[in-house]
């Protein structure tokens, strides 16, 4: 367990924001357990901790005091932040895990703050390249972006997903709430313009007019960071006469999340930018068929274990959902393929590959 001839003492991770129920934060905590189990001192550092994870994290300033050249610092990167410039000066070995940056154009007109951070992110990603020893993309799509940004030493290792999180009893109240509704279209992910929840709402309009007048759309995910987009989504639903049919759940517990997946007729994503797409795999794990628009890393994550839509046609997206709801043959084949696909993200395998890529 040596790198460049020297024994690594600690493997610390950093991301500006860590929060509960966020796929990247979960990834970081799952990696931390592995690093610790391999005998390293390991902590998760951040600038801001949101929700109940605060006790699990350490403030980033402590990195400037305790870090030695024998430490490995793993910088997770999904947005620009001034702290990266400071951390790059630390004498530790540095690895970067790239989760991709939502392109700024998605935020223009709805969140200029996020657009500015996205632009900063692209600049910083390039500037960091010479200071990073090893860069990992969580998808091949992300790895290619790293190469484009000037990183020489790259690898693709997917997100480490702690599946046991989903092995809980589904929340009863959710099941009660959805009882008796035939069509329940589900999407899980932060409310964010790149995820195009607005297209999902338009698609629901088609679904109710042309397929099932009682269909509902469940949008699971926090809307805290995108208040303007969120309020405009509600206005869109209202203008299309869908107010009661679009259900925003906000942040949910694991038990609730499992209940939504299990109750859903299908999981549908019209997102136009994903660096990986954990919910696609969560749906497969819990036996929900997946219909997804093929954009960014979505295609490689789904890998023929779901209905990949090659073009953004909302009528086709709705009919694809209807087909997998109605045709039990298709549905079963997709569910089986999903279960098979999830095996490729076995935590032990992913952990071993992370270890290899980081040279630990």
């Amino acid at each position: 367990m040596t790198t460049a001839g020297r024994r690594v003492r600690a493997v610390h991770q950093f991301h500006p924001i860590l929060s509960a129920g966020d796929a990247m934060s979960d990834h970081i905590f799952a990696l931390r357990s592995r690093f610790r189990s391999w005998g390293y001192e390991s902590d998760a550092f951040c600038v801001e901790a949101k929700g109940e994870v605060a006790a699990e994290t350490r403030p980033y300033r402590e990195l400037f005091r305790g870090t030695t050249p024998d430490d490995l610092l793993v910088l997770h990167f999904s947005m620009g932040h001034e702290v990266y410039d400071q951390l790059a000066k630390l004498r530790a070995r540095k690895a970067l895990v790239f989760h991709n940056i939502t392109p700024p154009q998605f935020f223009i007109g709805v969140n200029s703050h996020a657009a500015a951070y996205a632009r900063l992110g692209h600049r910083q990603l390039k500037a960091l390249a010479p200071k990073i020893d090893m860069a990992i993309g969580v998808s091949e799509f992300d790895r290619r972006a790293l190469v484009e940004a000037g990183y020489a030493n790259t690898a693709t290792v997917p997100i480490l997903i702690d599946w046991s999180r989903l092995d809980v009893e589904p929340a009863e109240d959710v099941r009660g709430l959805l009882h008796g509704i035939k069509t329940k279209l589900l999407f899980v992910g932060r409310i964010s313009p790149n995820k195009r929840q607005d297209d999902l709402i338009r698609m629901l309009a088609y679904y109710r007019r042309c397929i099932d007048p009682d269909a509902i759309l469940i949008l699971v995910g926090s809307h805290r960071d995108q208040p303007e987009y969120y309020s405009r989504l509600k206005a869109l639903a209202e203008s299309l006469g869908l107010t009661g049919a679009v259900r925003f759940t906000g942040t949910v517990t694991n038990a609730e999340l499992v209940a939504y997946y299990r109750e859903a007729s299908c999981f549908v994503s019209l997102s136009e930018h994903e660096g990986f797409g954990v919910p696609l795999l969560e749906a497969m794990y819990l036996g929900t068929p997946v219909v997804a628009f093929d954009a960014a890393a979505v295609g490689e994550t789904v890998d023929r274990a779901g209905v990949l839509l090659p073009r953004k046609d909302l009528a086709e997206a709705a009919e694809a959902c209807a087909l997998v709801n109605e045709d039990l043959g298709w549905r079963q084949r997709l569910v089986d393929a999903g279960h098979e696909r999830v095996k490729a993200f076995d935590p032990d395998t992913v952990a071993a590959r992370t270890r290899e890529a980081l040279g630990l």
Partner: protein
Amino acid sequence: MTSDPGSPPAVPERVDIDALLAEVRARVRRKRERGIYSADVDAMLRAELPGGARLLADDVKDPIAALAQALDEGVVYDPTSHKRFVGAFITLGRRVTIGLIRWWVAAILDRQDRIDRLLASAYDVEGRLAPRFGERLERLEREFERRREHEVASNMHSGYFQARFGGTEPVIREQAERFLDLYRGRTRVLDIASGRGVFLELMRDNSIGAYGVDLDQRMVATARERGFEAFESDAVAHLRSLPASSIDGAFARHIAEHILPGDAVEMLRELRRVLQPGSPVVFITPNVSTLTVGAHTFWMDPSHLRPIPPDLFQFWLELEGFVDVSTVTFEPSTEHLSEDVSDPVVRENVRLLNRTLFGDRDYAVIGHQPSA
């Protein structure tokens, strides 16, 4: 490395997504046909996100609209900190700082806003913030192209025109034979607009090395089928591609009247560069000093751009440095006024009229590259 960690075993029964999508599309089609997927459903699918700017408005395809929008966008900053305990103090600190520098920042922003608007309106030509340069340029280019096409009636089927008015092969060959002696013993003569290869055939029959260029791909194909060396190319472009002193003769029958004078001059300059010393050039074109040609038959071919009087053509060659420049006319008119008149004055007048109205129908201007 790939995105497939640990190369998973193949999915047991691969899902035929293509078949599924085909069924999906069939469903959409049926609903359209039955009127269930109607125009108002379409309108719902295209509904804009209400309450503000269009999503993804900053499209590089429409930067002007995005600029207009950005100019009118307010900047919102929420100074509230959500940190526990210290959050309230941070929020207070931010508010105080903002309060202190508010007027200074506002003054700078106001000036910047004025500069932005001035810049934007400086480009605003038609009273709207969208000069749409690219669009206008494309429209102009399109219209210019259309004008060029209409000027020469390129939408007319040239094959029919050739069949009705074009010269027959024996006539063309006979015209070319007149200049055969100029080319004897030469090895690399260029036929500009070589057509089906009549001139090239004459050259081959007399063991003269020659090749042709033509714009018409079908003509080039026909010439090649007959075993001639021919290329599909614009004459001037081809000449430009040649090294200096690389050919030893040029022949151009009925080409000068199809191009603009500036192009003709450029062709002459390029010929001066690529011809070896002493090489001949021959240009054949309608003799517009015969008025029945200049006023009538010249215009039978809509692709004729403008007539070139013989003395002008000769002058061009002299001006560009060709030597021993001369002009000959041929192809006599079939109709004549009778000169069988007893009054000598009237007879002279009739002769003058015959020369002016019914003279030779074609002429050639001949020049030579000066000797080294």
